């Protein structure tokens, strides 16, 4: 609005500031808690200014986890989470874009049936098929492995559907022009469709990176060895039982570490992400 109404401006800013505080305050408390000794944060009221144990606490969790709960080093978990959060989106994008390409640009028997089969699985979340999936992964001996962590989460109806919708907006003439130019279907895919899908892929990557990073139930089921824990699982394993014996300062430090990478990915890819959601380059 370009109206000059000081009170309205003040009011809208006040609402925005309140909103930011509401969201940011818990994160701030997490940060503060991660910089104190356990004794300090157990006081009532808990301190609201950062303490002097920042380096100590973070070094402790990164190298040796907590002292009373899980002793797995968080640095290893960060690597595991990163692998998982990278393999899932990359795998999803590769598989989905190829299946969408097949469904949109080729005529083959049962094409629509297959598309609907993919589409129907959209309605089934991981949790519904988690027991059979676990059984399959266990029988294949993929427990406690990167393959076990990532493969079952790679197949994606959502991404296939998204690429399909995008390909349908690409004018048919483009494919025909490429055909007249002598491009084979895969060449057309590589030279024309892939570059045009860049922003869509970027948006999907951001969403799926966060999806992969935040996975909880699946890694909880299939990782039993400390060396395969992901960060989110690490937090869970540090919480041992009753409130009093949990080292909340170390747990909060781990939580901070778990929050950073997704935030960074969103921050760095924000331009691409927004482009992918709102703009199509045609």
């Amino acid at each position, binding site marked *: 609005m370009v109206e000059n109404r000081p009170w309205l401006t003040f009011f809208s800013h006040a609402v925005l500031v309140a909103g930011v505080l509401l969201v940011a305050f818990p994160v701030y408390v997490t940060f503060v808690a991660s910089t104190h000794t356990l004794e300090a944060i157990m006081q009532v009221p808990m301190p609201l200014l950062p303490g002097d144990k920042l380096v100590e606490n973070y070094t402790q969790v990164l190298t040796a986890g907590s002292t009373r709960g899980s002793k797995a080093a968080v640095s290893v978990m960060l690597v595991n989470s990163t692998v998982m959060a990278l393999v899932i989106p990359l795998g999803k994008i590769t598989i989905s874009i190829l299946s969408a390409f097949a469904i949109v640009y080729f005529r083959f028997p049962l094409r629509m049936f297959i598309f609907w089969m993919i589409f129907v699985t959209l309605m089934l979340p991981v949790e519904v098929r988690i027991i059979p999936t676990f059984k399959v992964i266990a029988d294949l001996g993929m427990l406690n492995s990167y393959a076990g962590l990532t493969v079952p989460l790679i197949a994606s109806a959502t991404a296939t559907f998204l690429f399909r919708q995008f390909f349908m907006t690409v004018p048919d003439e483009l494919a025909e022009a490429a055909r007249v130019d*002598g491009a084979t279907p895969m060449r057309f895919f590589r030279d024309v469709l892939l570059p045009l899908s860049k922003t869509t892929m970027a948006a999907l990557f951001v969403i799926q990176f966060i999806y992969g990073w935040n996975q909880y139930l699946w890694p909880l089921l299939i990782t039993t060895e400390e060396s395969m824990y992901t960060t989110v699982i690490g937090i869970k394993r540090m919480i041992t039982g009753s409130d009093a014996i949990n080292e909340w300062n170390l747990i909060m430090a781990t939580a901070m570490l778990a929050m950073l990478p997704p935030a960074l990915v969103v921050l760095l890819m924000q331009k691409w992400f927004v482009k992918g959601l709102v703009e199509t380059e045609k």
Partner: protein
Amino acid sequence: MASVSLRDVRKSYTADLQVIHGVSMEIKDGEFIVILGPSGCGKSTLLRMVAGLETITGGEIAIGGRVVNNLEPKDRDIAMVFQNYALYPHMSVYDNMAYGLRIRGLPKAEIDSRVQKAAGILELARFLERKPRALSGGQRQRVAMGRAIVREPKVFLFDEPLSNLDAKLRVQMRGELQALHRRLGTTSLFVTHDQVEAMTLAQRMIVMNAGRAEQIGAPLEVYAKPATTFVAGFIGSPPMNLIPREGRLMGIRPEHLEPCAESEAMLTVEVDLIEPLGADTLVYGHLGGDGARVAARLHASVDARTGKLPLRYDPAQVHWFDPASGRRLEA
């Protein structure tokens, strides 16, 4: 460069849905042929069959004496210009033109010289590094033509290439297309629904209606001697007047009607609509007797008014058609 033969070409999508009912034509080497017809008459389908983008249900298409029915578009030695240009949006103008040549594996130097030459002909040299989105409609159109030219094909296929341009640009591009054809002399097939484009560009034209070639001939020949009532009504603006007379249809073009004294009137029109165009004035109305709708093109000096208007014509300018079949009857 090559001749193109269409021999009883047919297309059907299902057993009941036939869209091209046997079109035959011999196109000479270097000829500029326009396929003209209303929307849905099958003209684009026919062109796409020549291009290889649609399969041929029946008949034969030969380019340069070689039957191409089962060849991929890339093996037919043709180049096509699409209505919406179909430029690759992420490639520069240069890459758009060079893409087909790169796929063919031509040497870099050869590609460069061909692209530069085409860019010179089409005055695109300044835009080679730009993306299509940074070009105007006319420039995009030229890039699409450039992409066709660099291939040095035997046949150019144009699918309504000018219909996305504004009126002024269309006239300009029409001129450029003519100049281009004079310069390259490549056999060209040009699809349009615009009769002015057809009349000005064509050496010969095919007028199509509902999947059939109604008439094939030079533009003025088609204008002067329409073979059917469809052609008579489709070519010319306003179209030829068709007036029932003695069990036949009499056709007379609006410009062949002139006002006269009431005593020598051959037709009397009850004028209800007047369109002054500057150079001349169009008047429309019903005939007194049988009520047929008639248009006349009058010189601007005539003071056109609504009401009774007596008209006469030169009987030599009259065409006769059979009302049942719509075919021309030679007097």
